[in-house]
């Protein structure tokens, strides 16, 4: 199994959620985060003083999928989250050893 970690723009959450639902990805965990990449933060003016906002609000999606669906799901997220502007985000894929569904105790891919 794989754990897909996608950092996306907050405004792309709805489209991504819908796309995943349409493709039978049945679970997701979302966290409010802030971050920067090449998109280096930007400067704002507050009370006449310019300052740099280093961290831009993003959402982090964590999605556990069977290993054989990882590439497809990653691709789907990338396409749906893309706006073509800096700050579109990144998607990381990690190995997932094991999963348990708490309610039933099922493990492995069945638990997804």
């Amino acid at each position: 199994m794989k754990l897909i970690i996608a950092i996306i723009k907050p405004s792309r959450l709805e489209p991504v959620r819908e796309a995943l639902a349409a493709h039978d990805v049945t679970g997701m965990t979302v966290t409010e985060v802030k971050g920067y990449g090449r998109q280096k933060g930007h400067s704002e003016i507050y009370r006449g003083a310019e300052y740099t906002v280093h961290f831009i609000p993003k959402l982090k999606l964590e999605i556990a999928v069977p290993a054989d669906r990882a590439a497809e799901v990653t691709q789907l997220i990338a396409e749906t989250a893309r706006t073509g502007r800096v700050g579109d985000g990144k998607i990381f894929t990690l190995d997932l050893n094991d999963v348990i569904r708490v309610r039933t105790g099922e493990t492995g891919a069945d638990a997804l």
Partner: protein
Amino acid sequence: MNAKALALKTLPALAIIAFTGSGFAQEAVEPATAVAEAASSGAPAEQTVFILNTLLFLISGFLVMWMAAGFAMLEAGLVRRKNVAMQLLKNISLFAIAGLAYYLIGYKLMYPGDSWMIGYEAQGEDGPYIVGYLGAIGTAVLEAVGVAPEAADDLSYATTGSDFFFQLMFCATTASIVSGTLAERIKLWPFLIFIVVLTGLIYPVQAAWKWGGGFLDTQLGFLDFAGSTVVHSVGGWAALVGAIILGARTGRYNKDGTSTAMPGSSMPLATLGTFILWLGWFGFNGGSQLALGSVGDAADVSRIFANTNMGAAGGAVAALLLTQLIYKKVDLTMVLNGALAGLVSITAEPLTPGLGMAALIGGVGGVIVVFAVPMLDRLKIDDVVGAIPVHLFAGIWGTLAVVITNPDASLFGQVASIVIVGVFVTVTSGIVWLALKATMGIRVSEEEERLGLDKTEVGLEAYPEF
């Protein structure tokens, strides 16, 4: 507001001047004749005047009391989340402490009547008067329960209880101004000790010079209707001196000359605070007419209400337009500060300007704020909520602007009084701050500042939940 103490000790004819609030000649005449006309022309009965004056103080007093909540919300909204609970604690504590200190010593110091500790009798055109420098020592004492008209302290004025209540709120306002500037880094207890001195001694002594009938009032002809100088710039000076001695927040000014913005935690609270202050200001300025018992006084209080609103509107709109022009985006906190600067600007003379002039005077206050806030940053004076531009700079402007519309004001008297009060407050509060710094220390450690005062000093987060 005007020489209440004077009214207590001089001739009745003179006492009437206390009513006018602005020292306008026509007013001084009008109530006097009104009494004679009572039967025929339908003027209010003598005791009705007294009751109406008292009522004005009570209503205005609770409005000004409400400003304490306004400062608390404004400051809580403009500090960072980790210092919010502390800022709230400071605000409610200083308001409570001001009540005790003003009762114990401030009120008598400010309104000594004819018992100045330091002062002398001089001869004026209308008879002898007192040139006072230092008021009396003693606690405030109100009229007895159910006092009979003959026994009232001054039947031509208002109840002593309402006067005390009203004046106390002005004293507390001065203290509220200081807390915002010094937020996020000053220790709780030294701050509160400073408040004791400010509300018990510094504020009352200089307020006596003007409103207690002291030398600024009698010698310099200083006019400051509701306290652009006596209240606002006093708070501003004390804050400025404190900010310099205390130093800026860690990380606020960078070695490369830039400054790091530290946006406030809650714009709704800051805006709520501003609206509360705007509302309370009607009492602040309106009540300073000190009388409501004649047609002229009623019209004057009405003018003041309308002008006060115009001043605030002018300040807000000026900041709105100016931040859009300069920064291409409107800065909400500047608009809030602008409205307040407009209010401070119109406070020294909310009566004589017309509505349009009031808006202009307030508008200049808004302009001052927009330029002064970044200027202070360049000077590395760290004023967390903008109290120095709003209360000190706009306070000075408002005090000077009196001469534009009030022919009784002299530029010399205004400038001299601004300087005298400024020097006095700067020196006295500087001494207190330095003494506190030398003894118990006034600043939290850098680590505590990083963690936030809520955790280290109050042991409580403002929004503690997961």
